Each structure stands twice: as C-alpha cells, then as structure tokens.
C-alpha cells in the first residue's frame, strides 16, 4: 500500500473536476492538487453533452432574464441566490473556455454565436456545433496538461471518504489496473463525480454514471437534496437511448405524432407557427418548451394512442428535414451522424424516431453556493451536487455552465479551507485503507457460493425505479419501489463475485458502482414518496397540484440504518416570488 497526500483532492475528471483543478493550479500554484477519476478524464460524460452552454452575451439579453427563465424552469424550486451566481459568472466562464481554445461556433464576423434553447426567452446558448461537451471537456483536459501541479490518478476508483475529527480528510481508492487499495489524504476533497442516470434502465447517460460521489457523501452522513427530481429528455433514440440534442429543436426541428400533428399544442405549450414562418421556432413555446413538460406530453400522447409503435418502444417523430442538408451539417452534424448510424435514418430525408429518456439528476449532494457540504472539508460541484440552480427541472444548456461556474467556485473555497487545517496523519490514512481492504475481502471478494450477480440486482433496481419513479408517479407504486429496493439492498449485502482477481477487475468496479446505485435509488424513491405534490419533473398522479405551502422546500434524504430520513429545507427566494410557469401564452 502506498500513501499519497495533496492539499486539495478532486474526485472526478469531467468538466467540473478539471475546471476546479485548473482554477487551483493557475491561481494557487503553491497548493498541491490531485485529480482522481475512475476513467481517463476525456472519457468523462461531459464529453457527451451536445447542445450548448447558456450565458448572457447578446446586448438585448439580461442577467435577470436568464435568472428568471432558470427559476421559472425550475418550478421555483431553485435557490435564487445560487441562480444569480450562475448567471453572473456564466459568460465569464464560457469566455475563459474560449481563451483556452474552445472552438465555439462563430458568426461570420468572428464573434461567438448563440442559439435558442428550450425554456430560454432569448438566444443565449453558446455551442460548438452539436459536440459542445466534447470540445469543452477536451479543451479543459488539454489545458490542464499545462499544469505540472495537477497530479492525476487515472482509473482509480474511490471506495470511501476518510472522515475523522468531524471532517473529510481524504479518500481510499482502488487503483483499477493493479487492484491495490491506497489512501489519498487531503485537507479538502471536492466531489465532481457527475450524475446517476444508470440507475434507470433507459438513459442517455454513459456506463460510468452510477452516482458514486453522491453515495460517498450520503454514506458519510451528508444529505442528498431533491433526489426525486429526475430529468427525462424528450428526444432520445429508441433502443439505445442515445441523445438527440435539444439544439435540433432550437434550430427549428418539430415534434410530430403518428397523426402528423404537432401534438405539443395540446399541452398548454402554445400554438405552432408554420415551419416556414420567419418567427419559427418561437422561444419558450411548443418544441422550445421545457423538458419536463415535453416529456410529460409524450407520455400523455402515448396513453392516447397517438405515438408510433416500434420494436424498441413507442416513439414520436422529430422532423428536421426543412432545415436542409447544408444547415443540418453545419449546425447539428452529430444529430445526422447518430441517426444514420444507430437507427438507419438520414434526417435530411426522413424524420427521426425519438422517445423520452432519463437524462439528468437535478438532485444531488446538498451544498451551499460555495459548493461546501455539511461535512467540513467536503465539497461538491457539477451534476453530483445540488446547489440548487436546477430545482425541479433543469433548463437545457444550464448544466455545462453550472459545472464551470461552481467547479471554479468550489475550488477557491476548498483551497481557503485547506489552508486552515493540518494534513491528515499517515496512521489515519493507512488504517482507513486497511479497513476498506478488509471489508472488500470479507464481502464482494469473499466467495460464499451465492448465485446472485451484479447485473441481476442492477436490472431489478433499474426496473423498479422506472416503474415507481418514472415520469408519472403515485404513492402506492412508490411504496412498492421503496420496498423492493430494500430487498435488493439485502441481496447486495450477500453478493459475492465470481471474479475475485485484482488486475483490472471490471466486475468488482461494477459491483462497487452497484452499491452506490442502490443508495441513489433509495434516496430517489423515498424522496419521491414523501413529496406529495407535483412540481416540475416530479409528477404525482395522486397529488397533481403544486403545493407551495407544503413543498416550496428542498427535500433532504439522510441515510439511516434502514430507510432514509427525509427532512426539508427552505428554498431561497430573493427577487422572484413563486408564480405560475407560463409557456407559449402571449
């Protein structure tokens, strides 16, 4: 066992983690920083973001408008002080990316170009064609290579946080290549581990998005906030769940049911304009409504029997033919690439089949606006955190901005705090790693003749969550889901792996991930059961109305011996008192 130490340790090498690492290396060259990630940084799921990142840049736009759109989009559950921080720092962060080389798409005169996005009043989404996340991540990764001070631990899996004297003092982690457990001490730890879409059966999220960081914090006693809010994206490819970006609609794409009708007009999202009308697509209307409302509309259409039936489930059509080949290739080339490759349809000539798909976790580790959690020394930023800027429904293109703004912010506070505490003792580190190693050998790596498998438990978890905590939920089904997750947790306790080898044991990694997924699933289901109202992405058929008196509050799930305890915390309202969400009504 080797022992490592850094002043600040970042867990996760995606957009938030790399932004944080660069912030530290550039602004505090004397501070030692480590980045630990279970994959090589450029594999992180930031890479798959497509449409863009929001920031006010146009002279006709305003920070207040961006803030209001975000808050109304969140169904008033976002903390307004956090949203103000987001919008104020957004353009600075995106410009910083530009100065680091990010190839943002341009106007003919060389200025940054912006496009419309769902729920946004004006064009304020910066984009790099439709591979924005890819360019953003690789720009950050390549820029991070400039700093020798950044020590990376690529393909290391964190198994626990080291908590002693009431604060987080590092992590224990398995070096996947060798299978060896090592402790990494730190005076501040920032979790930037992304979301957990993989707890559902059908998701745009990559295989790595298993909520590891959320579970680390949850197990250390930090509450998970607003976990009942799960974003379903309205346009994923059937079968694979591959994302077709909202930019397709931002550029003018329309959604059509099997009767050829632009069905969104039935769901209080405004009236359609002709696709040739110069004002199409209309902002905050029809196809440019928010994701929660569009996904709910899809389910209603399906119930009404107006969706197409296919071998991979029901779908509707996303039609972008009227944009023409040239515009498609310039603005959304990946949409074409993906549709041609994975469903065999060239969107230049045919509409793309799409359906709703789990995309994003609004909830996450409860943090303040500096990314600090209730556990001293522990910070979180990005999708794994809940600051909260996304509330009950995130607007598309706010998350790339969020990872940059709050990644950088958490870094600076983490550095300050690191300076105020001593480094962890070597003894603490080695004892922690030893006990993790012993636990591993006594559980997953201890053959016990059981026949359960990682994939068996995982599939059951995914199915029960989709059934109970899908787009529409009700108390009875949620109770069943909570109960079956508890059973799955019992099964997991007894799980032992066939593969007990140490070298690059991906079954072991998957089993550890499954442990995290079960924690996340539990928090989602119990938070959803407790919130007896409908708000944003959380729609209770047995409680169809929003209840501001009872639930204009964040849920906090605390891990308990058995079921989690759900508590609530007030939403911060600064300037925008709760009101109705209005889309498409003049």
């Amino acid at each position, binding site marked *: 066992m080797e022992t490592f130490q850094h002043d600040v340790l970042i867990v996760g090498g995606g957009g938030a983690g790399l932004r944080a690492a660069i912030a530290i290396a550039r602004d505090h060259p004397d501070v030692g920083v480590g980045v630990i990630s279970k994959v090589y940084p450029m594999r992180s799921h930031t890479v798959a973001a497509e449409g863009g990142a929001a920031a006010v840049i146009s002279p006709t736009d305003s920070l207040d408008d961006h803030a209001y759109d975000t808050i109304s989009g969140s169904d008033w559950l976002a903390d307004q002080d956090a949203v103000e921080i987001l919008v104020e720092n957004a353009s600075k962060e995106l410009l910083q990316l530009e100065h680091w080389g990010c*190839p943002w798409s341009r106007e003919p005169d060389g200025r940054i170009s912006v496009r419309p996005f769902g729920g946004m009043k004006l064009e304020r989404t910066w984009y790099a064609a439709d591979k924005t996340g890819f360019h953003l991540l*690789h720009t950050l990764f390549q820029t991070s290579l400039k700093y020798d001070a950044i020590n990376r631990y690529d393909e290391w899996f964190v198994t626990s946080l080291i908590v002693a004297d009431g604060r987080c003092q590092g992590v224990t982690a398995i070096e996947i290549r060798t299978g060896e457990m090592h402790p990494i001490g730190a005076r501040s730890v920032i979790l930037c581990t992304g979301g957990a879409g993989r707890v559902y059966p059908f998701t745009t999220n990559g295989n790595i998005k298993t909520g590891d960081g959320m579970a680390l914090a949850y197990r250390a006693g930090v509450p998970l906030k607003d976990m009942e809010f799960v974003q379903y994206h309205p346009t994923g490819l059937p079968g694979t769940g591959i994302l077709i970006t909202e930019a397709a609609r931002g550029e003018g794409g329309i959604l059509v049911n099997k009767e050829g009708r632009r069905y969104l007009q039935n769901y209080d999202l405004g009236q359609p304009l002709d696709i040739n009308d110069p004002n199409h697509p209309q902002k905050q209307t029809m196809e440019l409504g928010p994701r929660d409302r569009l996904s709910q509309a899809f389910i209603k259409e399906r119930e009404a029997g107006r969706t197409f039936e296919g071998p991979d489930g029901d779908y509707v059509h996303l039609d972008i033919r009227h944009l023409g080949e040239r515009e498609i290739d310039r603005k959304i080339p990946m949409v074409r690439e993906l549709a041609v490759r994975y469903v065999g349809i060239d969107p230049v000539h045919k509409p793309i089949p799409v359906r709703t798909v789990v995309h994003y976790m609004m909830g996450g580790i409860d943090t303040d606006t500096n990314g600090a959690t209730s556990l001293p020394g522990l910070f979180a930023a990005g999708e794994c955190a809940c600051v909260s800027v996304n509330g009950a429904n995130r607007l598309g293109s706010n998350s790339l901005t969020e990872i940059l703004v709050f990644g950088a912010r958490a870094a600076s506070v983490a550095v300050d705090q690191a300076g105020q505490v001593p480094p962890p003792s070597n003894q603490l580190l080695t004892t922690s790693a030893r006990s993790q190693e012993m636990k591993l050998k006594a559980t997953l790596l201890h053959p016990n003749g059981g026949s359960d498998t990682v994939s068996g438990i995982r599939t059951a978890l995914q199915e029960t969550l989709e059934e109970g905590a899908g787009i529409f939920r009700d108390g009875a089904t949620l109770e069943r889901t909570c109960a079956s997750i508890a059973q799955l947790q019992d099964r997991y306790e007894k799980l032992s792996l066939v593969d007990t080898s140490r070298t690059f044991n991906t079954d072991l990694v998957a089993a550890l991930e499954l442990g995290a997924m079960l924690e996340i699933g539990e928090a989602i289901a119990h938070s959803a059961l407790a919130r007896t109202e409908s708000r944003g992405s959380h729609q209770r058929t047995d409680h169809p109305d929003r209840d501001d008196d009872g639930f204009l509050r964040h849920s906090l799930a605390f891990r308990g011996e058995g079921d989690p305890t759900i508590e609530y915390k007030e939403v911060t309202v600064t300037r925008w008192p709760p009101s109705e969400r209005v889309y498409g009504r003049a």
Partner: protein
Amino acid sequence: MPEQTVLEVYRYLPDEETEPRFQSYEITYRDSWVVLDALDHIKTEIDPTLSFRWSCRMGVCGSCGMTVNGEPKLTCETFIRDYNTETIKIEPLAHFPVIRDLVINMQDFMEKLPTVSPWLITDEDKPLEAGEYLQTPAQMARYKRFSMCINCMLCYSACPVYGLNSLFTGPAALALAERYNLDSRDEGTQERSDVVTAHDGIWRCTYVGECTKVCPKDVDPAGAIQMLKLSYALDWAKSLVLPGRGR
C-alpha cells in the same frame, strides 16, 4: 430478426495465466447490435470475468477501441450485422501492452500528449474583459477537423511505425499539435517545434496512411503530420534565407 454468431474473444487473466488464449462465446444478436452490445451481453449474461472498457456507447468518449477481425475499431460503432464471417475475432488494440483481456495500457500516449503542448499558447494573456478572440468560421475550419480527436487510440494501433518503435510521438498527439498550430488564436508553433520536429516526431512518419483510414472521427492524422512536415520545413528554409526571421 435475431441471429446467431460466435465471438472469439482474446482472454488474458494475468492473475491466473501467463499466456493469452481465445474464448468462444455463442450469442444471439439483434440487427441493431454493435460489437460492444455483444460484449456487454457476454459480461452480464454469460461471463462476468470478461474485462473491457466502455462508457458512452455513442462514439464520443473513446473508451471502447478494440481489434475486430484484425481491424482497429470503435466497437460501439461497429455493427455485428456487417460481418458475415463465421466467427468474429475480438482482440485488444495492437501495439499496446495488454493489462487484461481487451484492456490495453495507454499510459504511453497519456505521457506523450502533454509533450506537444496541446493547449492554446499566446504571447500575451488577453484579459477576459476584452472579450473573445475573433475567429471567423473560415479560420475555424482550418483546424476544426484536427480538433475532433477522441483519443481512442485506433490510429496508434494501425500505425506500424509506432508498432515497431514506440518512441514515435504518434498520430493523435501530432494531429493535436497541428490543431493548435493552425488555430488563428495560437502563437505556439515555434514552441512546439522542438518536440514535433524531434527525431521521434514527424520525421519518423513514413506516411503509411492507415491512421487516417481507421480514424472513426475523420480526423486525418496522416494529413496533419504531412502538413506539419511541410510547414516546419518551410520555416527551416526561411530561417536559412532570412536568419532570425523564423516563425
């Protein structure tokens, strides 16, 4: 329609074996399946000990490069239906040390990449308040193609020059050097020259051209390297004619 095929998969379990072997898995696949789907099916249903890397399964994270019937492929973009051979042979990417099964060690690339300074180099730091560097779509088009690299390592696996001598900086890293050299905002061409034009840099490339052919993202690293050769050679020639006037 479900169909059957056999995957012959390279196995190497270093904790138990000293030599690699091939293991056959008979699978029933659907028309929509890519090779990666079949491997995941094997891992979840047949044999959990099989190890390979994957994540996004949409061709952008770069994790799942493997050798399929002798050709380097991104397995999430490679459809089983396109193979009419009796068996499909899956091996790790060539030219890299094998850690286990289909997992290669790509540390060599991770160490080479920073040496070509793949970041924007400017003579002066422009303050953020001054706004963006203007860059027209035409200026962006010059380097855009070379910025699409997902670091999947297929090009290294196709390059015999790298296979014979791993000191070679290699296609992806050099293409990224050219990506920044061609960026209108960048002023680092000179700074990159030492590594790029070193003995194991661009001049090792004999233009086999396979890196470009196997690239799943149409990056054209071979072209990038030839462009680098030309531009650095011209710089050198200019410095002979006009001493001290190099870039």
